[in-house]
């Protein structure tokens, strides 16, 4: 799987705000993604990885578990008091929609976002750096890995899986 397999579509615009790191690879089950770019914050935190933010809470499938319970019973920050206290709002919002298809149709996310709290990069440049990553799959056959803590919501990783049938 080669890097920058994204064909440079919308990533060109999104990349204006990020520091690109090419040739690096992220190993994350079930797919090995080609790393096409990464946020500047990531580089700043190389000397101080985000291990302090790792909690072990993951959301790896639709509704969180094989029972499809839809229940995260390890949420210690959000509760009715904190959410309703007037301090709940948008942390970050991606500035642009995700990639459309070749016919100009817009993207839609029918699949729920997935969350992995501790994805460790194996590239020499970012070796040992833990990431909190949101995975998103669109109906236009892209799968994205997004820095969950990135206030700009940039896309560090994107993989195109070809034309749908």
């Amino acid at each position, binding site marked *: 799987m080669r890097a920058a397999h994204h064909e440079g579509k919308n990533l060109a615009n999104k990349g204006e705000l990020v520091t690109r790191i090419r040739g690096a690879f992220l190993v994350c089950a079930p797919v090995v993604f080609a790393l096409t770019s990464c946020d500047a914050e990531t580089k700043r935190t190389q000397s101080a990885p985000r291990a302090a*933010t790792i*909690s072990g*809470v*993951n*959301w790896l499938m*639709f*509704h*969180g578990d094989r029972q499809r319970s*839809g*229940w*995260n*019973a*390890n*949420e*210690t*920050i*959000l*509760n*009715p008091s*904190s*959410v*309703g206290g007037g*301090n*709940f*709002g*948008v*942390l*970050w*919002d*991606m500035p*642009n*929609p*995700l990639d459309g298809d070749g016919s100009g149709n*817009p*993207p*839609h*996310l*029918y*699949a*729920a*976002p*997935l*969350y992995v*709290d501790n994805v460790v990069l194996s590239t020499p440049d970012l070796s040992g750096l833990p990431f*909190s990553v*949101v995975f*998103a799959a669109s109906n236009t056959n892209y799968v*994205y890995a*997004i820095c*969950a803590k990135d206030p700009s*919501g940039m896309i560090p990783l994107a993989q195109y899986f070809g034309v749908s049938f």
Partner: protein
Amino acid sequence: MVRTRVVTPDPSQPAYLTIDAQDNSLSFKSPGTAVISSNGNDLTTAVLWVLEPNIFRGDSLGGSHPTLYAVDASSMQVLQVVYSSPANLLGPGGKYNAPTVANGVVYTGTDKITAFGLLQ
């Protein structure tokens, strides 16, 4: 919006669901399935999250402006909406999609990803 409760009358009998609380003022057009966050089994910490595209099933996604709802799951009388995202904040889409809650952040998928949480 209706909260149900599992009733187990007798070990020899099958369990069933009963309505535990409801709010008839809160209804959706074509929401995704709800997810719940809580701190352990403490119901007073539970929040129910729903992403509602604000369009009916047959409507075009292009005109949708989804809303993220947070509902206080602990109220026994009326389930209170403690937060709904600002109108038109989320991009088109979000039909039948469920938000994801992890580590104090709620992630929604529409035509992009948006993250909600406690502001500093």
